[in-house]
């Protein structure tokens, strides 16, 4: 579909020229007050041909977003280009003035942003925002531009019937907002679209839809695509060629097949991991998803696992578990608590039956009050030394379950047995020692660590509160714990914001371990981290489990992590248990779980609301 534009547009030649965009030795730095000049990109060189799809893979903070910004001259005031060129259709974009770049932006090269909810102006209507982009590059009347906007929305899968054009951004779901930003990006028929992590914020189903949409648009409009992501599975589906970036440099490039088979180091390897849903083979021993195999048949991960995790051989094999103590078995038999108060090896450490909890919504003097069922008839059991995962979509009641099991809240009904003791029957004061045996690590250590305390103070707080040992001993123990979780002892005086996200999780783990718990509940503890960091912490957790005989209860929505960490899986939806299975079965049929979870992209809390009579 060719349109006649009023303003001049960089001419796109009819036949595919060899290179649409040619970046040569691009080096970009940022001025930082306390650290001098920092290089974000160094010596970046690549080409994009017309109609081709190129992927850029790298972990967060390696400079991927800076590339897109630098090419279009959108660097913040602290950023500057040291050297290099970016030639687009014969014109070097680096060093061009704002007015000249304005012509290119949106009409020649356009940018799809990473967080769609942030890229839309909250006080303007969707249709107006798209029309705005059109009118910036063409002399069309308001009505015409709005019509075009409507057509564009239909193209990205939001037809007229959905009334999106008249809506405001806060009324749309995340997936719909992403489609709108894509519509804005293709509004002026650009030659190249730079998509910066377009699927990171979305759940799996919506991710697939967006990738399909991009694919179709590419074919229809003959777009070239530069797709930036930290998730290789996304790139594998959408692009032909891939570049891998680390610390601002490109370390490897090739077609997706080449790169997947031949990673140059463990870093790349960790980046290239597949989530469980894309797995093809299974390792029979551990029941975990495989690593891409090297040609000699062994993968380095297996080597690391065997040498660093001596307890791994002692863990109950999935086959054993399935026959003796699966939760499914327990559910079918009548619910009798173990009469023997001394727990034996194969009886569950934690055992909960018929947990029910509901909340009253609405403030004190308000007229309408809803009773929302957060949990209804939940049963589960975790064996000592094993790991159970609870998965489910957001709003399914996972966090409420974690709080009830950690004795931070009392369920309305049901029983929780821990080590042979009925916790729900105990008074609050008697619960304190049990609370210390069950520790929780929360999703956002950003707020679970008091930002004013130093690392040592944070880790030693539970010990100091106990008052059993003097202050210095507690601090020494804290330093030991920090070493155990892989943090250097001389970092003890740092504040939380001086640690990276992964290191903060380690701090939280160290603090939880200081009271020597028996059960550790991890409530989305690894969410928000890059894959390589997640795997490092997974390693740590497995090692600690073996050496300290810990029991884990994982709560997550990430299937890839869950299958690595846990033997058995419980699926929760709308406060009820819908499935109990093992990790192996989950790997085999992951689609079944997703099919039972609710619709696409909406993140509203789900609950059975019943009005109080």
């Amino acid at each position, binding site marked *: 579909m060719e349109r006649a534009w009023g303003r001049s547009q960089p001419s796109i030649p009819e036949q595919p020229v060899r290179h649409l965009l040619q970046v040569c030795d691009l080096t970009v730095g940022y001025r930082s007050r306390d650290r001098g000049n920092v290089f974000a990109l160094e010596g970046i060189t690549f080409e994009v041909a017309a109609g081709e799809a190129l992927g850029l893979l790298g972990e967060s903070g390696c400079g991927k977003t800076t590339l897109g910004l630098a090419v279009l001259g959108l660097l913040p005031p602290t950023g500057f280009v040291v050297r290099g060129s970016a030639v687009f259709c014969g014109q070097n974009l680096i060093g061009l003035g704002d007015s000249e770049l304005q012509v290119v932006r949106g009409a020649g090269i356009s940018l799809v942003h990473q967080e769609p909810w942030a890229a839309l102006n909250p006080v303007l209507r969707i249709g107006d925002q798209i029309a705005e982009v059109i009118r910036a590059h063409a002399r069309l009347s308001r009505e015409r531009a709005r019509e075009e906007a409507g057509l564009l929305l239909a193209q990205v899968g939001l037809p007229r019937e959905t009334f999106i054009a008249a809506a405001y951004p806060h009324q749309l779901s995340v997936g719909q907002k992403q489609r709108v930003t894509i519509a804005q990006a293709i509004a002026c028929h650009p030659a190249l679209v730079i998509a910066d992590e377009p699927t990171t914020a979305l759940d799996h189903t919506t991710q697939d839809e967006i990738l399909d949409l991009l694919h179709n648009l590419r074919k229809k409009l003959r777009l070239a695509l530069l797709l930036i992501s930290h998730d290789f599975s996304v790139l594998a589906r959408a692009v032909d060629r891939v570049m891998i970036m680390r610390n601002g440099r490109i370390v490897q490039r090739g077609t997706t097949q080449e790169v997947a088979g031949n990673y140059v180091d463990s870093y790349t390897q960790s980046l290239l991991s597949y989530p469980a849903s894309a797995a093809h083979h299974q390792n029979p021993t551990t029941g975990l998803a495989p690593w891409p195999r090297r040609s000699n048949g062994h993968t380095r991960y297996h080597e690391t696992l065997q040498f660093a995790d001596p307890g791994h051989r002692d863990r109950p094999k999935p086959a054993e578990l399935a026959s003796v103590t699966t939760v499914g078995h327990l559910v079918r038999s009548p619910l009798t608590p173990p009469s023997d108060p001394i727990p034996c090896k194969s009886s569950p450490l934690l055992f909960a039956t018929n947990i029910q909890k509901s909340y009253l919504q609405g403030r004190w*003097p308000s007229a309408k009050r809803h009773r929302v069922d957060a949990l209804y008839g939940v049963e589960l059991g975790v064996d000592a030394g094993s790991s159970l995962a609870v998965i489910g979509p957001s709003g399914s009641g996972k966090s409420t379950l974690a709080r009830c099991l950690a004795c931070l809240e009392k369920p309305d009904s049901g029983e929780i047995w821990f080590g042979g003791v009925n916790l729900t029957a105990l008074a609050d004061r008697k619960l304190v020692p049990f*609370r210390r045996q069950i*520790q929780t690590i929360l999703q956002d250590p950003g*707020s*679970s*660590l008091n*930002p*004013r305390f130093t690392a040592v103070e944070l880790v030693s707080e539970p010990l100091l*509160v106990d008052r059993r040992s003097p202050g210095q001993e507690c601090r020494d123990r804290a330093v030991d714990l920090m070493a155990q979780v892989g943090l250097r002892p001389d970092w003890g005086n740092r504040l*939380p914001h001086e640690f990276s996200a992964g290191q903060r999780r380690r701090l939280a783990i160290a603090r939880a371990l200081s009271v020597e718990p028996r059960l550790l509940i991890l409530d989305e503890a690894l969410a928000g981290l890059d894959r390589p960091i997640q795997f490092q912490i997974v390693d740590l957790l497995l090692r600690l489990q073996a050496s300290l005989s810990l029991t884990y209860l994982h709560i997550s929505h990430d299937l890839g992590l869950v299958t690595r960490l846990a033997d058995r899986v419980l699926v929760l939806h709308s406060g009820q248990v819908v499935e109990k299975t093992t990790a192996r079965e989950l790997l085999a049929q992951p689609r079944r779980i997703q099919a039972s979870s609710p619709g696409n992209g909406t993140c509203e809390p789900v609950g059975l609301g019943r009005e109080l009579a």
Partner: protein
Amino acid sequence: MIRNKKLVVSAIALVLIQIPVIGAGFFAPYDPTVQNRDVPSSPPTSVHFADSRGRFHFRPFVCRWIGNTSSSGYQGSHEDCSKTSSLRFFVRNETVYDGQVRKSSRHLFGTDGAEKLLLLGTDEYGRDQFSRLLYGGQTSLGAGLLATGLSLGLGLVFGCIAGYLGSWVDDVIMRAAELFMALPWIYLLFAVRAFLPLNLDARQAFILLIGVIGSTGWARPSRLIRGVILSVKQRAYVLAARGFGVSSMSIIRRHILPEVSSVVLTQAALLIPQYILAEVTFSFLGLGVSEPQPSWGSMLASLQNYYVLTAHWWTFASGLVLVPIFFLFYSLADSLQRSVQIFDLPK
């Protein structure tokens, strides 16, 4: 760090300003209530180094001021350098009442003779403005500081109660705060002042003023403190601490108090200038401390007369001195706000 430097400089400057005010007895050359009826409304005395014969004196001196009395009444004053007194430091002043020496005190500087050094001139009663400025500072600054203490104290109490107990107690206190904040501030002050007696002696008026200003200002601090307490109570680290079995008292001590104290400090730096201004406004309008106790506001009151406004420029002094003081307080508040800011952790 740059920010901390600003904080330290402002704090030190403010303390330095307080010193002459607190030690007004020493720093002020004369008694603020003594009237010199022969030189009313005279400009600041000029300090001379060279006398009329052109001889340079190492020690500066002042000349005598004589009023121009004429048949139509008082018409300003002029300098008569036939009689001079030199400036000296650490002068012993003797106040004479009824021919007898009643009070003898040492002052930082003064003259050795009968002529007076009037650094900021005199008001219409002939009282030395400079001394009145220092003594008036005691009233105005003192009222501001004490009123801030009162209102922050009340705000702390109510805010803590509302934050901890929650439910209906919280609602009642917040409705009351809304009521107090429903009026524009000065109107509220007037309303409360209105029902209190008008003619009081200086000391009672001072205490009354502090009470009025302090007790009407509790609403905003209490809302802020309550907000802080509510938000900290549901932070994940408090939840985690409960998981370790930390007692409520310890949670308050370790986690909540530091947050509250930073809010209180910042509020103090913002409220003190506001309350000083309240006292000055009251005294300016005649509702504050009464004569003969000096206050910066009542010193400004004479400016309401147009003649004084145009001719006697030195009377502005008590108002002008407020500007650097407020400036220092506001920059202190700014740097306090920035230094106690918690670094936002990225998600």
